[in-house]
């Protein structure tokens, strides 16, 4: 066990606070009351252990990647299915018809910004709790097949000894999607959690 129950609860609490902050940003997009509920299935494992964490089964996955830089280093992945991206788009542009090219561009721009605010909100909580200077980089979007996903995600393991794996349900009037988070982080994360849990 990497963290004891108290430490794991601290990590869960920090991520939950980050997602609550992100909710405010998401309301900015959806223009309606929005929730981002962190599930109880919150795990922290060593990356050296068998990696079998991706739950999304759809053929086409929107994979958002942000580098975490500063005192805490890592790679943050956020996964949506194509259907989920369509649902988010529809809720934000309910009455707009786009031609295919514009729709693709708009959906890419939107989902990148959604990732940007969610990742930044969680990273900001880590920075505040751990007293670190750390921030998330510019997000990148890749639309990948389920078959390729595991190999791509495994690239995030380099120099990062731990993997945080959690889901969050994004709910508003017109949206109900399950965002899947896979974050690879270095040893500083565990040190930060242990320090914070003693406060």
């Amino acid at each position, binding site marked *: 066990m990497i963290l004891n129950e108290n430490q794991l609860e601290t990590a869960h609490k920090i991520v939950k606070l980050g997602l609550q902050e992100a909710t405010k940003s998401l309301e900015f997009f959806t223009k309606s009351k929005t929730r981002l509920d962190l599930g109880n299935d919150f795990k922290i494992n060593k990356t050296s252990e068998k990696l079998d964490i991706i739950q999304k089964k759809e053929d086409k996955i929107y994979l958002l990647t942000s580098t975490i830089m500063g005192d805490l280093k890592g790679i943050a992945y956020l996964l949506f299915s194509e259907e989920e991206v369509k649902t988010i788009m529809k809720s934000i542009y309910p009455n707009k018809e786009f031609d295919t090219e514009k729709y693709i561009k708009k959906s890419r721009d939107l989902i990148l910004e959604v990732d*940007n605010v969610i990742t*930044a909100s969680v990273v900001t909580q880590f920075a505040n709790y751990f007293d670190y*200077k750390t921030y998330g980089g510019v997000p990148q979007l890749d639309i990948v097949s389920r078959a390729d996903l595991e190999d791509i995600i495994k690239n995030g393991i380099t120099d990062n000894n731990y993997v945080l794996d959690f889901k969050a349900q994004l709910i508003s009037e017109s949206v109900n999607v399950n965002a899947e988070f896979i974050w690879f982080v270095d040893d500083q994360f565990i040190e930060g959690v242990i320090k914070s849990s003693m406060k």
Partner: protein
Amino acid sequence: MGKRVLIIDDSAFMREFIEETLIDAGYEIVGKAEDGSQGIEMALELEPDLITLDNVLPDMLGVDIARILKKEEGLSSKIIMISALGQVDIIAECMANGVEDYIVKPFQEEDLIKVLNKTFMNN
């Protein structure tokens, strides 16, 4: 003629949102840049009244852009940072490098206008 604004943000979504908000409020958008080096080049060439600046860009940090423009180049343009990063020490570092005000995402259209209007009223 409204005040002239340059938008520096890697997010197309945010560039569009800021542009629409500021045009509606009577500002003139003189340029949009999606990375730091393009932003510095445009800022020095256009000398806008105000720059809205993202703090995390693909090639550099907004705080370094502010330092270059204000401290090294002596540009008179006001700089408003707009970022999802809300850590106190990051905000303080930006303010120490010539940033007039710092808006943490999320924000509403009226928050942005209020900050811009306040910036020009104070100067």
